[in-house]
């Protein structure tokens, strides 16, 4: 573990008007890790990501990025440190895949400068990593959901940041595409990046994340490695669902089985 956390969050709180969505969140995130944020709908996961990404301003508490308060960063400086892959993605106008991926280079290119060869290489490499280099000239609206989501991940990769946030980035994808994107994220973490992903599928979270934050009602319920954070007790408490958690040899990870049916 690196000595300094990339993110240091202390007593973070947030409210929409008078509705409190987050209270008293404290955590530290280090490079080289794949963090998972799990919890029921409406527990504040996405809000937490938004706060970390600087899209929202905390009502209380502090966030430090590499030791420096988040509020001191300009949007541009921050965008060189972290990238966000949103879940649903709606582009107002019909840009091509390449144009969209190139937008990831925006924080690195001066206002009236043209992209350099380095920028083009980064964009190209990101598209290749996602297997969409053949779609470069296609407009986004002509792509399938899976292709489009890969284009958005490629855009975040092209941004070339230490931290990458995935906000349910794989929820709408089929299993093959979801696994492909999660494996890319996992490899990035191994190469020293910091990944934080909101994931709804607990099996995927247990398999891919090496540290999990479990949230409930705007608070951190528990945190730790999958074996600690994903247990039958935690699932019963947080999701009000009966489950059985055990090691699965085939998937080589902790896996959860749910009790699907109501007792007759």
């Amino acid at each position: 573990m690196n000595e300094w956390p990339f993110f240091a969050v202390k007593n973070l709180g947030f409210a929409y008007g008078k509705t409190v969505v987050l209270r008293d969140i404290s955590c530290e995130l280090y490079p080289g890790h794949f963090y998972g944020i799990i919890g029921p709908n409406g527990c504040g996961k996405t809000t937490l990501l938004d706060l970390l990404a600087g899209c929202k301003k905390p009502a209380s508490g502090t966030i430090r990025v590499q030791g420096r308060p988040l509020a001191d960063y300009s949007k541009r400086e921050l965008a060189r440190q972290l990238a966000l892959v949103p879940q649903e993605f709606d582009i107002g106008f019909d840009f091509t895949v390449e144009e969209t991926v190139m937008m990831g280079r925006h924080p690195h290119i001066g206002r009236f400068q043209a992209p350099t060869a380095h920028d083009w290489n980064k964009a190209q490499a990101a598209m290749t990593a996602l297997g969409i280099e053949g779609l470069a000239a296609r407009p986004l609206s002509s792509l399938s959901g899976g292709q489009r989501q890969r284009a958005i991940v490629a855009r975040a990769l092209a941004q070339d940041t230490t931290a990458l946030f995935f906000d349910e980035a794989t929820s709408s994808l089929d299993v093959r595409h979801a696994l492909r994107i999660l494996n890319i994220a996992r490899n990035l973490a191994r190469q020293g990046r910091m990944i934080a992903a909101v994931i709804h599928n607990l099996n995927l979270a247990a398999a891919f994340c090496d540290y999990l934050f479990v949230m409930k009602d705007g608070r951190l319920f528990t945190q730790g490695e999958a074996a600690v954070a994903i247990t039958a007790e935690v699932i019963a408490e947080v999701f009000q669902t009966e489950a059985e958690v055990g090691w699965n040899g085939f998937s080589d990870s902790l896996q959860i089985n749910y009790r699907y049916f109501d007792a007759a």
Partner: protein
Amino acid sequence: MLVTAIAAVIISAGMGYVKIGAFDIIRIIATRLTGDASFSNGISETLPYVLMDVRLPRIITAALVGAGLALSGVIYQGILLNPLADPYTLGVSSGAAFGASLAIIINISALGQVSTPLFAFIGAIATLFVVMRLSSFEGQISAQTLILSGVIIGAVLSAGISLLKYLADEQVGVIVFWLMGSFASSSWPGVPLLCLSLFAASAIAFFYGRDLNIMSLGRRSSDTLGVETARTRKILLVTASFVTALCVSVSGIIGFIGLIVPHLMRFAVGPDNRKLLPVSILAGATLLLAADTLTRAVLPAEVPIGVLTALIGGPFFGLIFRRKQRNGSHYE
């Protein structure tokens, strides 16, 4: 495009009751610019007067207003993420119309000729201010609340205009005529102001061109891509609305230019605002000038320009839209 726009200015300057050849026009302008009378040797003495004092102010105003409306259209569509947005979406036109109607009905003549445009401008800017106040929450302005606020304020102002028309008696004709837009009363004093603000607004828009592209990904994405979304949005909104207010106050409400020009140009050059902005400005200028020349010089009687742009623009836009759909391109 630039050549087309300049050619349009020269050709339309020649058209009208008195025909003037293109070469003569250039000679007359050269005379004025250089002060050297030898350029216009052999040209009748009334021609320079017709050209410089009657036609050119109107032509240049029409071109500038067309450019301004197209520019604002691109900005509004980009910021509101809504291809249906146009310079009037936020109710700026209703504000201007209300101001102008008020000036006409209470017959303000203290400021002479400029009182109607001045009131229109004040009305437009006041509307913008109210709409932006209404739609901002904790320093953020969302596209949807902006459109909604614009519709609300627009509805209230429309009712106000109806009331003014009802109270206006014989002046109702003046109000209606103003609302439909016209360049007939354009004169030189308005041109530098219009020119200067259009220049400034274009510079601001070009400055934020790439940011505007990225803002079409939505606020969360643009924020994390290093765009100061909230601030950029406000700056561009105020810029576009200022230009619209100025355009409306000199020419009345001219529909469709701000809506269709950005669309047509997007078909041609794609959605990248860095290309879209300049071509739309030039196309807007050319198109509105052509429409104004049509009503001034070609048609037997002068049709209000706002009516003409909608009458021609609507079907034309429909045609292109259909063709685009048939070709299988998605257009949302």
